[in-house]
């Protein structure tokens, strides 16, 4: 957060950008204690850089969520399928 943004208008203890990045996971997970959530959200509102960091973290998580669409090697797929038929019969 630049000097101009930190002009004392925000009440309560200010968080630095360095602190914000360590709280991002708690925030995204919804486990941040109430006492920290307010200052966190105030900071994010006023600091475009931390807002960008938070957005990138969400984009990272979203993209990870798409990695599970993994295709097996054809040989491996056939092998498991053949095994499936065998297991059902046993």
């Amino acid at each position, binding site marked *: 957060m630049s000097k101009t943004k930190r002009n004392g208008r925000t009440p309560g203890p200010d968080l630095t950008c360095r602190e914000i990045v360590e709280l991002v996971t708690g925030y995204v997970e919804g486990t941040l204690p109430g006492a920290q959530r307010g200052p966190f959200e105030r900071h994010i509102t006023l600091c475009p850089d931390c807002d960008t960091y938070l957005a990138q973290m969400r984009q990272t998580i979203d993209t*990870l969520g798409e990695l599970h669409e993994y295709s097996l090697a054809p040989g491996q797929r056939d092998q498991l399928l053949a095994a499936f038929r065998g297991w059902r019969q046993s």
Partner: protein
Amino acid sequence: MPSTDTPILEEHHLLACLRAGDERAFLELVERHHAGMVRLAKVYVGSEALAEEVVQDAWSAVVKGIDRFEGRSSLKTWLFSIVKNRATSTFSRERRSVPLSALGPQDDETGAAVAADRFFSSSDPSLDGGWAAPPRPWEDAGRRMLSLELRAELRRALESLPSRQQVVVGLRDVEGLEAAEVCDLLDLSEANQRVLLHRGRARLRQVLEEAFEDGSHPA
């Protein structure tokens, strides 16, 4: 997060199909979770080859046990617990397996999410801790995140995380398990789970950041 919850109806349907011996349902389950199961097994048994063996064995247990699955956990949580049990029991007698907890709270839980030199260090409290090298917004992120190249890079980065981070991020963000399910499965405290997730995600964001910077400023 698109993968966080499998709709209950979908899971019921999948389960019914599996019990009826539907091969497509089985393949769907395999394609969705096989890689994640191997990732989990690998933490316990060390090598990729042994992990594949464990997972093969786990699939057999899943198919044979599907009629006894009571649905007290989600289907995928059940899958992963079978993998974990197989990995620890089958290979502990060969002394090749490492329990996850024995990996200890090592250096994979310490350190900052973002390199210290990207923030100002100053005795002036109005400057200290502010960004010196702030992240730049990712241009055209929606489209670029779809690129196979970027996804392959993200997958490689995930696979090179320290093993506990890798498993926690994999189960949470790739496989879509809940925090409580992961804690239960891996015998981790909630705080521990969150720290591993935090470290792992922060590293992956950094890898994507580097990929975006490279892409937007060709040499």
